[in-house]
């Protein structure tokens, strides 16, 4: 057994047993972050905070929610909304948080794409981040089932039907997923389990992995500059904070993170109190009814772009396109053949690729919610979906042509 001296303070006592001083250095005061960054670098912490809010509000909702097709709707809309003290607040926080978390995820993703933060040793950061995107998507979908409103039911119907594989007609698989011929009690209880246990566990694991992947390649910076972190850290520790290219995570980087989070929370709670409807579709305030299909079925806004990639094609082609669109972003580090780690503005053709991709995804998002019966919208949707794939095919070519900076 190790030898222990008498400790003179709680800190010292803990340090002897847990090495908290070392831990603090490794995780905070000597975890070096480049100085040349902007507020977009705070999105990771904003996401972590939003996940925390979703977790806490979710725990409160879980205490009163009833996963039963006969009780679910009223447990959410009556018990939580009028009988539980501040139940409405937790629900609106949870609903708005679920929507905003995707806004920040998309900002975080496109920041990574713009600055090339997925290249040269940072591939795993990107891959684990995409893993988180998929896990959050599954979490959002399973959570959307729980109030058991019209949109829960019909979205569940549409999405589980995708697993029939078009012309493969694998209805056995669909029934296996639902546990019934249609979304019913078995469906609700298993999605409840996924939403409150299995997927959150996966998310927490992936967050740890995502942080871990950052450690060795370090965070990218605004110019994609390769920094000698050891040298810069020595400079910083020697007191030359102005000359050094790095800052410690805590308290310097953290102070900026907290400020950005403050701005974000103002928006967040403005939406929670005054503008929550955007995150809570009116259709879902009608109880699930298997005999009444809503006039328009559409997913929440953050899935619209991939929904629109599914829609304009024939059944089988649409499914293939949809499946490819779901995973294509994973391939980014391998499809980008350029040796440069630099902001898109300095990367020739990639600059146009970036803005074209961003605008195309936004146009797809718009079209995904509009009625496909309108020929104009349907055609815009088709062209945007084709452009989406054209851009991915063009990516390796234009990046291969890129000159080394």
């Amino acid at each position, binding site marked *: 057994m190790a030898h222990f001296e008498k400790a003179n303070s709680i800190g010292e006592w803990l340090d002897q047993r847990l090495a908290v001083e070392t831990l603090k250095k490794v995780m905070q005061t000597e975890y070096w972050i480049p*100085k040349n960054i*902007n*507020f*977009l670098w705070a999105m990771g912490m904003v996401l972590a905070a939003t996940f925390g809010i979703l977790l806490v509000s979710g725990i409160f909702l879980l205490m009163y929610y009833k996963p039963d097709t006969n009780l679910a709707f*009223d447990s959410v*809309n*009556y018990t939580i*909304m*009028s009988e539980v003290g*501040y139940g*409405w*607040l937790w629900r609106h926080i949870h609903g708005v948080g679920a929507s905003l978390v995707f*806004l920040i995820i998309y*900002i975080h993703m496109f920041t990574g794409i713009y600055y090339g933060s997925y290249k040269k040793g940072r591939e795993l950061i990107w891959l684990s981040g995409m893993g988180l995107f998929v896990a959050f998507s599954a979490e959002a979908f399973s959570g959307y089932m729980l109030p058991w409103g019209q949109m829960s039911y019909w979205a569940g119907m549409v999405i589980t039907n995708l697993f029939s594989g078009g012309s493969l007609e694998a209805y056995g698989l669909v029934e296996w997923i639902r546990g019934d011929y249609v979304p019913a009690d078995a469906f609700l209880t298993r999605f409840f389990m996924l939403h409150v246990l299995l997927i959150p566990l996966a998310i927490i694991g992936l967050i740890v992995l995502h942080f871990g992947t950052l450690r060795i390649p370090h965070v990218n910076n605004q110019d994609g500059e390769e920094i000698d972190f050891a040298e810069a850290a020595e400079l910083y520790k020697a007191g030359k*904070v*102005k000359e050094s290219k790095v*800052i410690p995570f805590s*308290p*310097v980087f953290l*102070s*900026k993170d*907290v*400020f950005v*989070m*403050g*701005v974000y*929370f*103002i928006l967040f*709670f*403005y939406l*929670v*109190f*005054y503008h929550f409807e*955007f995150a*809570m579709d*009116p*259709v879902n*305030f*009608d109880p699930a009814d298997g005999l009444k299909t809503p*006039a*328009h079925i559409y997913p929440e*806004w953050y899935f*619209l772009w991939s929904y629109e990639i599914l829609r304009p094609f024939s059944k089988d082609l649409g499914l293939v396109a949809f499946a490819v669109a779901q995973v294509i972003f994973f391939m980014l580090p391998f499809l980008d053949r350029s040796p440069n780690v630099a902001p898109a503005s300095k990367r020739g053709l990639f600059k146009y690729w970036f803005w074209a991709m*961003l605008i195309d995804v*936004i146009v797809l*998002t*718009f079209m995904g*919610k*509009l*009625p496909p019966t*309108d020929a104009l*919208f349907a055609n815009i949707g088709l062209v945007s979906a084709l452009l989406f794939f054209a851009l991915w095919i063009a990516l390796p070519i234009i990046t291969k042509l890129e000159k080394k900076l």
Partner: protein
Amino acid sequence: MKELKIFGIVAIFTLVLYWGVEPFAHSQMHKHVESHGFAYDGAADIEEAEAAKKEDTVKVKKAFWADVAKVAKIKGDVAAGEAGFATCMGCHTGMPINMGGVIPPALDHAGAIYDKNYLIALIKDPAMASNVDHKYADTSTHPMGSIKMMMADDQQIADVVAYIMAKKAGEVTTKEAFSEACGRCHAMRYAKTTQLGDTPTFKHEKDTLAHKIKVIDEQNLVKAYMGKLPPDLSIIIRARSEHFLETFVENPQSGLPGTSMPRVGLSHEGYEKVHAYMTEIGDPSKPAREELGPKVLLFFLAFTALAFLWKKSRWKGHH
């Protein structure tokens, strides 16, 4: 400032995204229905018939609403109207007794919540007034159809309506307005009311079940008459937009063509009462939200200001 420029770009893209998936998408998904300020002159009905190219119906409707306008100009005698109103009381007893498919509504506050023109039209021809004439080959098959025979004189109609507007117009609570105008077809389970009114609490489960059976029987009658059980309105306030609810109550055919729901003829004040009740039940956190919102925002404004100062002090000498 480069950072502000980047923030501006992010903000613009976010706002454009919001505009596309919310206001723009909704404007494309729902056809726009013009509100007509709770005035009942048949203009919307005639337009509908014209759009459907039913020329005979157009003629009949034009004549009918012209008649209504004529009666509206006659000065009614309140005292004489009282005698005529006794005829109404034969059915509108305020008791939950189904007659021909529905329970006749209580008229205790009819003068306070319904429109005068509408009431005239209703007595002249209930199916036409409620814009569900497409459901009946002949108005006399309407549950209230017999009124056409019982009260055919224009002066008498003017008298009865004058009586209702004068004597049945006392203070009305939001709940009374709702239950008189909507409650005989629509339950509201979050307020514990059904088509039979407030659900009493019973000591014995046997009595609870007996009441439940009565409710089911009543609902079956309404269902048989309307084609389907009209939806529970507990949280309709969150399931439909303000504008939709308003124009739908004014004229159900405008939002749901062919629906069997009758137009109930609420005046603007009457609708406001009903709307207030639906908000109370369907969105009960509204007052608490309005109370707490500014405090939470103030907290985060202070938090952000302090965080900014902290950031400034921490980054001092770094650039």
